[in-house]
Structure formats: structure tokens, C-alpha cells
């Protein structure tokens, strides 16, 4: 796998995000300053409504900040066009969700292929990347199984394979172990640690302290502000 590594993966400066909800203005992020190094493993913890998911959406180019800048490499997500954001999500960012978000009618290999679709690769290259990604999450023998035929842990591994097949700069995960039991959680954490060990930048939102303990940096977010940064 070839990763495009720079010294800093993300650089956030005075990031704010407000939105209207039932006639009220909600401040989801209130001036975030943060740098995430390439190859780092960062977890974000905090109470519900503290801004974790909003921050992750900024990092994932799914949303734009109301103020400040979110630099992914040399691109400012706050200023980028919709097409540029799509391109970033397609090529630079891998996403893993708590509910796996696999398409139930497609097989594991086809679900992984969905992540490669926007890249416009030729068929042999896609097949090679699909096989490689499934092998790295230990699911080569389940490539033709549909999500309903896989355990929760296996489904999350398929989701990770879908995210890494595109060879992204960063992998963002929103409660990736939230729907899994303990053994499956460890299984997924092992996979993520391995990927991070290979140089992939990981940002994981979690409530689970066991997940946070595996990270090199642990951020705590409350009231839209970073209140604590812990480094190993």
C-alpha cells in the first residue's frame, strides 16, 4: 500500500461550527485549534453533544466549518468546492461507521468495490485492490458473502477494507466498535493498529476507554472545545 505522507495530516485553526436547530443557534464547535501528524493514531472522546461527530465530519470533508480553516494537506476544506470535497472523500479519506453502513444486497468484495467506484480505476487494478484489502482484514475467504451472512466484527472488517482499498491519506472511524462485543472489538482494534503501524493516520471517535488506550493521542471534547490532550 502506498500512502501519501506529509508531516502534518490535518491542521485546524479556530474552527467553529454553528447551526440552527428549532429556532435556536447551536454552537457545535467553538474555536478548535488542532494539528494531527501523518501516521498518528488519535481518539476523540467526550460527552454526547460535545461536538465529536461534528469534528469528525469536518475532518472527513462531509461538512464545512462556519469559521476558521481545516487543512487536509494543502487543501482547505472550508474553501473547497463541492467537487473538490467529493474528490477528497473519494481519494484521500477513508470512513468507517459504527453501523458498518454496508450495502446489504452486495457481497463483501462488491461492497469494497463501491469505495473504488469514484476513482475510475480499470477492472484488473480494482480486483487487485479488493483482494489485497480483504486479505489485510483477514476476509479473503468471505469475499462472496453478503453482510447478512457475516458476523458484526466481520462486517466491520469489510467496512475497513472498503475504506483502505482506496489507499487513503487518513482513516476516520466513528465509534467503530460501538456495535461489537469485546472479542470482536479487540479483533477490529488489532486490524486498526496494524494499519496504523503501516503508516495510516487514524482518527477514531469513541466512548470506549479500551479503544482510547490503544491510541497515541487522546483528545477530550466538551462544549465544542478541546479540553484535554493526552499523549503516550
Amino acid at each position, binding site marked *: 500500500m502506498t500512502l501519501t505522507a506529509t508531516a502534518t495530516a490535518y491542521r485546524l485553526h479556530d474552527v467553529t461550527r454553528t447551526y440552527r436547530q428549532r429556532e435556536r443557534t447551536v454552537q457545535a464547535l467553538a474555536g478548535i485549534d488542532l494539528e494531527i501528524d501523518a501516521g498518528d493514531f488519535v481518539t476523540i472522546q467526550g460527552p454526547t453533544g460535545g461536538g465529536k461527530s461534528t469534528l469528525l465530519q469536518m475532518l472527513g470533508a462531509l461538512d464545512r466549518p462556519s469559521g476558521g480553516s481545516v487543512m487536509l494537506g494543502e487543501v482547505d476544506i472550508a474553501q473547497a468546492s463541492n467537487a473538490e470535497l467529493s474528490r477528497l*472523500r473519494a481519494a484521500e479519506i477513508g470512513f468507517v461507521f459504527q453501523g458498518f453502513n454496508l450495502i446489504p444486497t*452486495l457481497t463483501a468484495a462488491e461492497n469494497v468495490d463501491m469505495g473504488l467506484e469514484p476513482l475510475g480505476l480499470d477492472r484488473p487494478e480494482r480486483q487487485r485492490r479488493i483482494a489485497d484489502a480483504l486479505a489485510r482484514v483477514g476476509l479473503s475467504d468471505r469475499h462472496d458473502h453478503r453482510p447478512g451472512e457475516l458476523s458484526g466484527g466481520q462486517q466491520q472488517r469489510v467496512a475497513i477494507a472498503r475504506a483502505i482499498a482506496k489507499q487513503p491519506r487518513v482513516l476516520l472511524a466513528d465509534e467503530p466498535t460501538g456495535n461489537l462485543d469485546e472479542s470482536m472489538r479487540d479483533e477490529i482494534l488489532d486490524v486498526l493498529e496494524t494499519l496504523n503501524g503501516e503508516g495510516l493516520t487514524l482518527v477514531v471517535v469513541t466512548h470506549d476507554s479500551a479503544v482510547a488506550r490503544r491510541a497515541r493521542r487522546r483528545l477530550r471534547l466538551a462544549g465544542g472545545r478541546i479540553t484535554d490532550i493526552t499523549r503516550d
Partner: protein
Amino acid sequence: MYGTYLRRELAGRKKQTVIVAVGLAIAIALVIIVNALSAGVRDAQSQALSSVYGVGTDLTVTGAQTEPGQGGGTRFDFGANDGATQDGTTSLSQSRLMTDMRRGTLDASTVSTVTGLDGVAAATGALSLTNTTFSGQVPDRSAQAPADGATGTRPEGERGGDGGSAFGVDSFTVLGVDPAASVGPLSSVTVSEGRPLTSADAGADVAVVDATYAASAALTVGGTVDVGGTAMQIVGIVASTSSDADTAANVYLPLDVAQTLAGVGDVVSTVYVQADSADAIGSVQSEITAALPDATVSSQSELASTVSGSLSSASTLISNLGTWLSLVVLLVALSLAVLFTISGVARRTREFGTLKAIGWSNGRIVRQVAGESLTQGLIGGVAGLALGLGGILLINVISPTISVGSQASGRGQGGPGGGGSGMGGPGGFGQAAAQATDIVLHAPVTPVIIVAAVGIAVLGGVLAGAFGGWRAARLSPAAALRSVA
């Protein structure tokens, strides 16, 4: 991947796919069947008209309609010594050949007048007649009262008259035609036995007979038929080119013979006109109207409106109920397709949010939704086409018959004429009877129907896809993921 995803999605929600496809299929089948039936009714109308007016007739010219009572009725006069008397009963029989008393005739020179007009390709005249035969028996009155010359017979049932009398009236239609003409009623007939009338038959007592009438009256080639008291030799039997309709008249005679027998002089009752081209019909009609202000000039479309009977009812039913029904079902089916697609997009919010999160563009997602809708529509289209063609096949197998009565040129059922003493005239009923026929309704399949079915299916798919795609494109990926978090 596009095809795989599309196929799996449609297969994964069979119920919705089936409902939309079935809705579209029913709508498309209805459109196909109504369309085919309309074409069938149009064919039947043109069949009915061509059997009366012949192939290629664009316009007809007829005499002005007469005022009620002006025409006079058929009058049968018997002298005291008429008939054969045997055992105290006198047998009487008399034939009369008459023009339609409800409509005036045209001078034969009208044909050359019309032929000389610009835009007229051909014209021919025909004399429409009714042969009425009165026959019956009356008691021998010479033994009861002194003969007083011509005495009109009393109608059957009249009290105080000739008790024990029995009369019958038989009639058939006769058309005097120009055998050399390329247009007119004989242009739409085929000779099933014997030979057609030819130019050499002018002045000869020969006739050709409609096949249906020949069968009912037991007439054969080589035999004779009594027309206006003259025995005409039957030289041919003719049938309509359409197997489902009769020809315009029961008996055809050379025009000059018909004129002489009817004693009407050099006149015709109808001039059949063929225009140079379809575009010229309007101007030719105007020219004829200007040249012959007293005549009635009718175009094919005006003639079509005179086709009556259950064909007319079928036409009305199809054009009203059928069209509206198919429109309503079509609207419901299209709405169903759109609503299901929109609700499908709403249900798949997380799926589309995920796809956007992993880099799918709005355009790619819209293409996916539109492709699914279009495929769904095409499935409905194919099913509808099969259903519609099956329906048409069923109609053609059942072959419903439709009665057609043409009252063209005002030649309808005539009332009793203003007869003199004795028997009132039969009016024009004989002609109307000849034009009443049963036509088998066929529902033809045309390429237009196939194209319409595919068009509706594509339209349904595109409409549903456009709405669904628009909804999917409007989804913000963050909101889509948040809504199911």
C-alpha cells in the same frame, strides 16, 4: 459495478419493483388496447365507407334533399283485367324501380362538370334505385261488382275492403353504374363468380349481383333477376373486398339501362369524385360547391360521421371511456412509480449518505437512482407490451362483430311516401337496408403502438428517476449520516 448494484437493488426490493412494474404494465396494456381498438374502429369505419363509396372516393356529390311529402310514394295500379284468376282468386304482381324520393337527382352532365374542375383526378356517376315488387292475391271482384277501370288496391288489413286478400312487398337495391369508371362503388368489389360489367354492356339487360344478396335470393350466374319488370341476365357475382362487409347495393346494372328502366332520363343520384391528392380535397370541395350550388358535397370525414350503429357506439366508448380510463391508470401508475422512488430514496438516506461519504458524486448517485427507475419502467413496459399484445390477440380471437348502418348522403330509412290511394310507397328503406351490415372488429398492432408502449415506460422511468435523483442529490452527506446516527 453500475449494473451489479442496479440489479441487486431491484432484486432486493422485489415487492416495490413488482408493484411499480405491474402498475405501469396495466397502464401500458390499457393504452395499447385502447389504441388498437381505436385503430380497429377507424378501419371498420373506413371499411363501411369503402363498401358504400368504393376505394379512392374523396368526395361525393348528391342532389338536394327534398321536402317531406314532395317525393310521392310508390304507386301500384292494377287494371280490372290484370292478374291471373283461378278458383275465385286473382294473383297480382308488379315491380317498380324508383329513385330515392327523399333526395333529388343530378343531371348526368354533372359528372363532366365535376371532371373538368381543377384538382379532380376522376369522377363517375351512379344512379341509386330501389326495386319494389308488390305481389299478392285478392278475391275475384268481377263477380262482386262491375269493373270500373283502374282501381287502387287497399292495403292489407284495411277494413271494409277486400277480405281474404294477402299481399307481400319485396325490395332490393339497384345501382346503375358506369362499368368503365375507376372510382365509385364497384372499385371496392371483387368478382367472385362470372365477370364484371364492362363498357360493352352498355344498353344490355345484364346485371351483376352482390354475393350476400345472391345467396339469400338463390341467384346464380346465368340466371335472371327481375328489375322493374324486366328480366336481367346475371353475368357476375361480386363481393366486397372486405370479407366482413356487403357491397353498396344488391344488384348492379349498366347506368343507361338503369336510367331507362327507372324512366328518370339522363340523371344520376351520386357523383363519386377522386381528388388529385389529399391536399386538394378541400379546394375541390369548394370548387364543386361553387359550380353546383344546389348539390350536397360531402368529404370522407363528413361521410364517416354518418356511420352509425354499434360501431358508432364503440367509437364513442373507446374515444371517451377508454381514453380517460387509460389516462387515469397511466397517471396513477406514473405517480406510483414517482412516489415509490421518492420513498425509496428517503428509506435509503443512510445508503446514499454513506456513498457520498466514500466519495460518490451527486451525479453518480442520480444516475444510479435514475437507472433503477428506468429499468423498473422498462420491466413494466415489457410486461405491459406482453399484456397489451395478449389483450389484442384475445380481441382478435373473439372477433366481436359490430353492426354498422351508414346513412350517408341522407339515404336512410325512409318513411312511407305520400302514396295515392291504395298502397303507400316504401320510401328509401331498401337502400338503408343494404348499407346495414355487421363488421368484425379487428384490433391491429402497429409500430406506433409498440413505440408508444416503450415511450410510456421510458417516460415513467425518467420521471420517477428525475424526482428520485433530485431528492438524492439534495441530501447532505453529513445530514444523511446524522439522521440515522
